[in-house]
């Protein structure tokens, strides 16, 4: 049970940490100043969630690892984030597609996790759900604006949605770790979140005059540490300073 809880807290924390890193890459590069501020603020919320979750994983593990050890000193195969969050920012349309897919999932997840039998997970979820409601709103408004905008913005939003679609399947996959924790009322089985997620996506896409992608290639493996080729580069940037100068502070 302890090992399951550590793995689960790490998965949730790694999702938030890796997406925070990706969103930080937009700093000074977003299409407009307000968006620069928006994407990095969303990243900051996610980083805060990651810190709480990684700290808790370290505490439950009881091996003396803190949030920094877990963020900076684990190797790629030890990260349990989903493939979606590690995908490159690419075009702004793709970043917004990833935001819509992920924030909708994370909102359903955190709302359900507020009722967790684990008081720490319930507290993190209750706080984060309020923040993620803003993230989903932000993504939704962009999808509407781009989808129902010009021919160019519509095409780029559509391309982004299609490019990231394969990584949606994994969000709702379950395994024994989650099932055991869900049976104890600690975790949320993501399979049960799909209906709510679908409803929001379909309503948004219909309003945005966009079609729902229907690709059949749905890779997985992130939860078991099997990542896409992009993950190694992301970790290199995330971890190099700490590994080069252990314990560096400023």
């Amino acid at each position: 049970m302890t090992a399951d809880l550590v793995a689960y807290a790490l998965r949730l924390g790694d999702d938030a940490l890796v997406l925070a890193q990706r969103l930080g890459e937009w700093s000074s590069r977003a299409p407009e100043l307000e968006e620069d501020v928006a994407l990095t603020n969303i990243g900051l919320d996610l980083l805060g969630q990651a810190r709480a979750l990684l700290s808790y994983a370290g505490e439950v593990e009881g091996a003396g690892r803190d949030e920094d050890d877990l963020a900076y000193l684990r190797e790629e195969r030890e990260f349990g984030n989903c493939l979606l969050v590690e995908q490159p920012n690419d075009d702004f349309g793709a970043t917004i597609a990833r935001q819509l897919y992920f924030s909708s999932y994370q909102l359903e997840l955190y709302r359900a996790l507020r009722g967790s039998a684990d008081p720490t997970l319930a507290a993190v979820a209750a706080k984060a759900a309020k923040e993620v409601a803003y993230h989903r709103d932000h993504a939704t408004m962009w999808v509407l604006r781009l989808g129902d905008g010009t021919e160019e913005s519509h095409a780029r939003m559509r391309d982004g949605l299609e490019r990231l679609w394969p990584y949606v399947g994994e969000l709702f996959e379950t395994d024994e770790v989650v099932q055991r924790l869900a049976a104890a009322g600690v975790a949320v089985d993501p399979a049960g979140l799909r209906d709510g997620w679908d409803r929001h996506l379909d309503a948004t896409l219909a309003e945005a005059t966009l079609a729902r992608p229907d690709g059949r290639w749905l890779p997985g493996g992130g939860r078991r540490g099997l990542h896409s080729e992009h993950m190694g580069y992301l970790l290199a940037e995330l971890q190099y300073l700490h590994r080069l100068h252990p314990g560096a502070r400023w």
Partner: protein
Amino acid sequence: MSAPAAAAVRELAGRVADPEIPVLTIEDLGILRDVVVDERGRVEVTITPTYSGCPAMEVIRDDLARTLAEHGYGDVRVRTVLAPAWTTDWMSAEGRAKLTAYGIAPPGPRRPGPVPVRLTTRPPEPVACPRCGSTDTHQTSRFGSTACKSLHACRACLEPFDHFKTL
């Protein structure tokens, strides 16, 4: 330690300013949750973050320890709790008035239940301009210079302003 002494320590702790919006104290913001002083004069202060990633928390912890040390409380522990989750409803009326005077539109009352989904690009209900009071304003960005604020502009006096988001 006597109850009046504990109240005095709370008063001291409550005076610590938010480093990002220095016009507000942590008492005004409602992030100071509890102050306990034991019989040996040791102090435990409980605070809660506004947002999970609020970078001001570490500065607030240091400021609390320093302020209390200056008043003779050398043994101070600052505890951070996440539950119950902070809400802008905990901001005091005084804090709201200070925000407006500082040029930041204060948060509105929180609606019960989940945040409604608006399937439209229209902005949410207008926020009154803290400068001229007009409600003929529009939102320019849902995210501002800190996690807790959004950006707006007033059509009446043409000034841009920050709004402390309702959470």
